[in-house]
């Protein structure tokens, strides 16, 4: 069973990577399999770990506590009325409860955790005894960055003169941030490639029946055959 999974994994990985040459039927097949399997997996997890575990199973074991579970279950079921245009308005009741509750606990906590706490972190002394010069410089750079970027995003004031120069500095800070974020993104994508390459290298061993090599040859032959078929069709 594990060996089958390894062969399927190697074949689908190489089929997806065949897109780097050109969009082709093998890539499309792998992509469709991925979408289908992901959807099926999510459905199964949603049923097993949410609906069955939190609704069906507790109801089956204790009817006394049933009402407490049935009420949210009922409102959850009302969401499915969105699929029927005539009665889709009913789902707005469930949505209203959901949005109301989540806004209620999200807004104050996000203001506290994301806004106030972050603002607190910029209000620090530039120098304290025993602090290194580098640390003080970092705090200054951070403070200047926060202020200039905030001023850049102040669109109620025209960006000219002093405000214009300050917001230009804010843009430079943003560019540095985007560069760093892009660098991290490239590193992340390369890491994913390294992970797959490492697995393909492992699956090319004799214990796995040279899976990567055989699947690689198969993918290449499929693409060559497809190209020949395309060219023949075009000539006709």
């Amino acid at each position, binding site marked *: 069973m594990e060996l089958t999974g390894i062969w399927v994994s190697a074949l689908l990985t190489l089929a997806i990577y065949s897109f*780097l*040459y050109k969009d082709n039927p093998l890539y499309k097949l792998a992509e469709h399999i991925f979408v289908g399997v992901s959807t099926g*997996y*999510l459905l199964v*997890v*949603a049923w097993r*770990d*949410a609906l069955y*575990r*939190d609704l069906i199973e*507790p109801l089956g074991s204790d009817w006394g506590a049933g009402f407490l579970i049935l009420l949210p279950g009922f409102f959850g079921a009302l969401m499915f009325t969105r699929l029927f245009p005539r009665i889709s308005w009913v789902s707005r009741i469930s949505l209203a409860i959901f949005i109301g509750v*989540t806004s209620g*606990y*999200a807004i104050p*906590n*996000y203001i*506290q*955790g*994301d806004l106030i*706490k*972050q603002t*607190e*972190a910029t209000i620090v002394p530039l120098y304290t005894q025993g602090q290194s010069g580098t640390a003080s410089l970092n705090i200054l750079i*951070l403070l200047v960055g926060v202020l200039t970027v905030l001023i850049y995003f102040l669109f109620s004031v025209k960006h000219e003169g002093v405000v214009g120069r300050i917001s230009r500095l804010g843009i430079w800070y943003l560019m540095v*941030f985007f560069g*760093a*974020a892009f660098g*991290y*993104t*490239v*590193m*992340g994508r*390369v*890491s*994913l*490639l*390294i*992970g*797959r*390459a*490492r697995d393909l*290298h492992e699956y090319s061993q004799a214990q796995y029946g040279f899976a990567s090599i055989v699947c690689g040859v198969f993918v290449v032959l499929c693409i060559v055959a497809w190209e020949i078929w395309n060219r023949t069709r075009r000539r006709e």
Partner: protein
Amino acid sequence: MDFWQKVLKLDRRWIFLVVAIVVVVPIIWPLGLPVFVTPDVRGVFDEIEKLPEGAPVLIAFDYEPGSTPECDPMAEALLTHCYRKNLRVVGVTTLPVGVGTGENILAQVSQRMGKERGVDYTFLGFKAEQSASIVGLGLSVQNTFQTDRYGNDTSTLPVLAGVEKLADFAYLPVVHDDATLDNWVIYGQQLTGVRVGSLCTAVMAPGSYPFKNAGQITGIVGGLKGGSEYEKLLGIRGAASNGMDSQAVIHIFLIIIMILGNVAYLITRKR
């Protein structure tokens, strides 16, 4: 067409081919490049290191299968560290796809280190609506998860002895590939005071730094690089460290072609 114009018109498939070669060669012939540990990774490592034996740790496995090349090495290193310290490990996820990834790595490492399910570790599973589940854990672990993923009653599990709510956990490392850290910090750390660490993909690392600067998380293990640093602190050379050879070489290649491309653009533009 001169050299610079050829550079600009180069078919990208040649670059893909060179990237593939540059990635594969260090995997087949490892270079053994050194790894240097940063304070951010130390922030997570030291938190685990200072915990007493038997302390309960809640690990959130909030990543999808597509991120396993980056997150699995970090999770494996973290779990190895926890088990070396004989900590009690409780796994949870707030993503449906995290069930497979979390359960898989937890079972793998636990089996390798001879740990017993229910006594040394367990996996609570997935609960819908991320923020509500974290708030629920903050109020009561047993009410939010009456049973663990394997059907055992959480009120009687030895691994959860003395743990009633989120604040009772000694540490909460979050292994994530999207913005779930925000919810764990906002609803977990802020409301209950539990100490949180971030083990994330490289793409998510920039988003974790504001929390680190504000003292809301103790440290960041970012991407394969972070994983390799954690492995170095543990004294092992695992998947992350081995992957860094390819990472270093490919970064040098990318820097060279970026410089080449920009120089070619500037020269051809001047003409």
